[in-house]
Each structure stands twice: as C-alpha cells, then as structure tokens.
C-alpha cells in the first residue's frame, strides 16, 4: 500500500486546498482598503462599518433571521413526527407515500419547489382568499416544507441506531406512549434534534431561489439582496458579510461538534 500512498496524499490534499482557497480569499479581501476586491491595498475594517450602516442589508438580515428561526422550529416538530412515524410504526396507510415525500425535497431542484409552491399559493388565494398576497408567511411555509425533510433524515437515522429495548422497558413498566417519548426517547435523540434545527436554520438563511418565487413586495430576504448586489459585480461589503457568516458558522459547528459528540454504541 505504501507505493500508491503518495498519490493519495497529493490528490486528497489538493482536494482540501480546493475547498478552502475561495473561502480564505473571501476573508482576506474583506479587510482590503481598496474598493477593488482583488488588489491588496492595505488593511482596513471600513467595509464592516459600511455593512452595518447599510439599512437594506440590515433589514433583510433581520427578516431572514426571523424566517429561519420560525421555519427551523416548525420543521423540527414536523420532521421529528415524520421520523417517528417512519422509524417506529411498522405499517400504516401512506407509509410509502410519506417516505417518498420526505426524501424527494432533498434532491428536488429549487426552481421546481419554488415555482410549484408559488402556483399553489396563487391558486389557494383565488379559491379560499388565503394566503392574501405573498411575504413572510409564504416563505416560512416553503422553508418549513423543505427543511422538515432534512430534520426527518437526521432524526430517523438516530432513531434507527437507538437501542429499542429502552423504550420497550418503559412501556412494559406501564408508561404511556407520550411519557415514553418525553422521558426516554427525547433525551437520547436530543443531539439529533439540535443538529436538525441548526441545519434547517442555516438552509433557510441561505435559500435564494425558493424565497424569490414565493416572496412578495416588502419581504426581501438576505440572499435576495446579496444576489441583486452581486449580479452587478463584486463588492467588498459582501466579503465582510461573508466573513461574519463563515466565522459564526465555524465557531458554532466547532462548539456543536465538541459538545454533541455521539456516544459509541448508543
């Protein structure tokens, strides 16, 4: 095996370098004095100041955080229920349908999800008068729908590997199903619930395409504002925004990974 290992080392190292070069360049040029994002002209933090004084970006960031918080929380509940149904109930009507519908959003192109939900909302408004117009509510419904799929996948894999005898013992001792869930299942799957919620939160915060379809006037999310700015060219305040997001996520993931290290055999 020694002979081929130099190839393996070089190829895999290049792969990791490739993953990080764009991110590192984003961060470096966010501290650039010049407006040109590609020529170094000295250290400066002025783009961060400009970012925080831009009312459009700050407003959109606030809208996006609100949407992400609500969608992730709804997706957590719905996704966990779906995972429980698929992992704990042996047979029920609609099981194949549920399992197909819960895995399809993971790969379905965003343009299809966005277009189809928008057309549904328009049709519903015509027939029932709800939702009146489009905005925060419609984005939250759309994000909840695709995020619950991610929650379900994460929670389901935890439920499958969990030792079922714990739940059986609680049942045998006379606990009702809701108590078994709250006192036995919930503590065991809570790391999966935390990562499912965090994953949903970041996915919602990141979505451009679906939000563009189902959004309405006055509800521009952060990715929508970034996209319209970036289309006109590179701007250093977007680099500053990217740096803040990347550093926050890196710290969050590091904390989560050190706290939620899955116990072996559990």
């Amino acid at each position: 095996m020694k002979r081929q290992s130099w190839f393996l080392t070089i190829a895999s190292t290049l792969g990791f370098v490739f993953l990080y070069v764009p991110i590192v360049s984003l961060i470096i040029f966010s501290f650039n004095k010049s407006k040109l994002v590609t020529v170094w002209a000295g250290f400066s933090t002025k783009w961060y100041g400009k970012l925080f004084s831009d009312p459009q970006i700050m407003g959109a960031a606030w809208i996006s955080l609100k949407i992400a918080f609500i969608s992730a929380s709804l997706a957590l509940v719905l996704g966990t229920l779906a995972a429980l149904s698929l992992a704990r109930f042996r047979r029920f009507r609609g099981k194949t349908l549920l399992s197909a519908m819960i895995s399809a959003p993971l790969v379905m192109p965003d343009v299809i999800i966005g277009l189809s939900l928008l057309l549904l909302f328009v049709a519903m408004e015509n027939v029932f008068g709800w939702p009146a117009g489009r905005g925060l509510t419609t984005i939250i419904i759309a994000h909840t729908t695709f995020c619950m799929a991610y929650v379900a996948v994460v929670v389901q894999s935890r439920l499958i590997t969990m030792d079922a005898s714990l739940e059986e013992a609680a049942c045998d001792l006379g606990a009702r199903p809701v108590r078994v869930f709250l006192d036995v299942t919930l503590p065991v799957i809570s790391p999966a619930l935390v990562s499912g919620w965090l994953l949903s939160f970041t996915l919602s915060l990141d979505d451009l395409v679906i939000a563009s379809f189902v959004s309405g006037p006055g509800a521009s999310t952060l990715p929508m504002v970034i996209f319209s700015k970036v289309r006109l060219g590179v701007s250093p305040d977007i680099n500053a925004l990217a740096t803040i997001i990347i550093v926050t996520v890196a710290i969050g993931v590091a904390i989560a990974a050190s706290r939620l290290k899955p116990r072996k055999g559990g």
Partner: protein
Amino acid sequence: MSMRANLLRLAGLLKALGFRGRSIVIGVPLWWLVLFFLIPFLVVAKISFSEAIIARPPYSSLIEWSGDGVMLIKLEFSNYAYLLEDSLYVSAFLSSLKIAFFSTVIVLLVAYPMAYRIARASEGARNILLMLVILPFWTSFLLRVYAWIGLLKTKGIVNNLLMSLGITSEPIVMMQTNFAVYLGIVYTYLPFMVLPLFTTLVKLDSSILEASSDLGARPMTTFFKITLPLSVPGIVAGSMLVFIPVIGEFVIPALLGGPDTLMIGKVLWNEFFSNRDWPVASAVAMVLLVLLVIPIMLLRNAQTASSEASS
C-alpha cells in the same frame, strides 16, 4: 420541566377530544407534505395545460361553463409543442444533462481520493478531516459561489497570480464561461459526494484488503477488484446527490456562466421572472420532473440498499 408538563397536558387534552396519538404523529407531517409538496405539482401540471393571458393570475382556466350548464375542459398542449418547436428549450435540456453528467464525473474523481484518505485515517484525524469537508457545506452556498467571481475575474486573483508568475502575459477569460460553471458546480457539490463515499469506504473490512495483498495482488489490482466494486453503493448515492440538483441549478450558471451557458434552471427562471409566461414555465418544470424520475428512483434504491447493509 414545565414544557414537559404542558406537553403531557396537551396530549391528555387531545386524547380527551378523541384523537388517537398515532394518527396525529403520522397525520400531521403526512398532510403537510400532501398539501405543500404533492398538490403543488398537480397545480403545476394543471397550469402547464392552460393558456397564457394578460390577467391576474396570468393563465386561463381549464374549466369553462358553456351557456346550458355543460362543463368544458380545455387542455392546451401548445405549451409542450412550443418547447419542442423552439430549439432553445431542447438544447437547454440537453446542455443541462451534459453539464450535470460531466460535473458528476469530475466531482467523483476529486472526491474519491479525499473520501478514501479520510476513511483510512486514524480516528482523531478522521474527525478533523470530516469536519473540514462538512464545514463549507454549513456556510452560505450563495457566498461560496460569489467567492469564485473574485478569483476568476479578468483582473481577478488567479489572473494576477498567473501574470506575476509570468505564466501568461494576457489575462485569461474565465468568468462567464462554461469552465467557470463547471468549477463552481464541482466546488459546491464536492461534500455531497465525499460523505456517501466515506460512509461506504469506512465500512470496508480491512482484512479483505490485507488478504488480497497477502495473496500477491498489487495495490492497483486490489483497488480495482475489491475496493471499487464494494464502494458502488456510495458512488451511486453520491452521484445522484450531485447529478439531480445540478440539472436544475440556477445560482451557479446565473453568477458564473455567460449568456451562452444554457441551463434549464436558468431558462425556467427567465421564463417566469422576465417573460412572465407561467404556463410555459410550468411545462418546463413538468418536463424536468419527468427527466428526474429515473435518477431519483436510482437514488432511493441505493439508499435503501446501503441502509439494509448497515442494519
């Protein structure tokens, strides 16, 4: 603990109202997905058969009542005929399939050594390397695509570097080309391939590999005869996780590609947002959906195969 108490009280209340716990656990997510995932596709299918009109909403109704109370259902196949007639749509579909296919192959070639290296690493190094693969996945997709604009621009970082090293005297045009689109796709979808490959490679029994080399097989032979065939489920799952979303990709061709980069996601977007032709956009979406049925079934089979193998 008050949250727990409240949940127990809620459960009791629902039970008193005659709901069965099981039917709520199943019913709530099932009906949510039927309403917001399944029915929307039926609406798209319906509108793809209607006619574009200048109104709100901008499409005609399929059902008309004639004067004597007879219901007429009018299906317009013209949107689909239009997709076939205008070469733009056919070539956009073909070009998306081509880009998705070749970028999946490139992602596989880049990801395989990485996944293999992670799977063979010591436990401590393995967790760090896995974290390094997952971390970019958690940061904004849009901003990671944006990062390439600064690198690939005519006066960008890569060209500045090449020119200062004397490799070229003129900047190379990389932005707004298919090269930039491929690069962006390979970059953003790399983690989707590395993770499933890693999952199958890490389960590989190292005693089989040792047996093979003890029997005199060279490393290359062992790789092609044993490692590669045994990692097929990971290859299929990873490839589909890349191939399917790339076909409908919009952000990467919109930001890195040029006007001649044809991808169906961009065509659908323009049809909807620029031309405001909802029926044609719906017809494009329906054709795209039909194209995706086979890859999605392949993915489901690969996933059930690997979950059965692990349990």
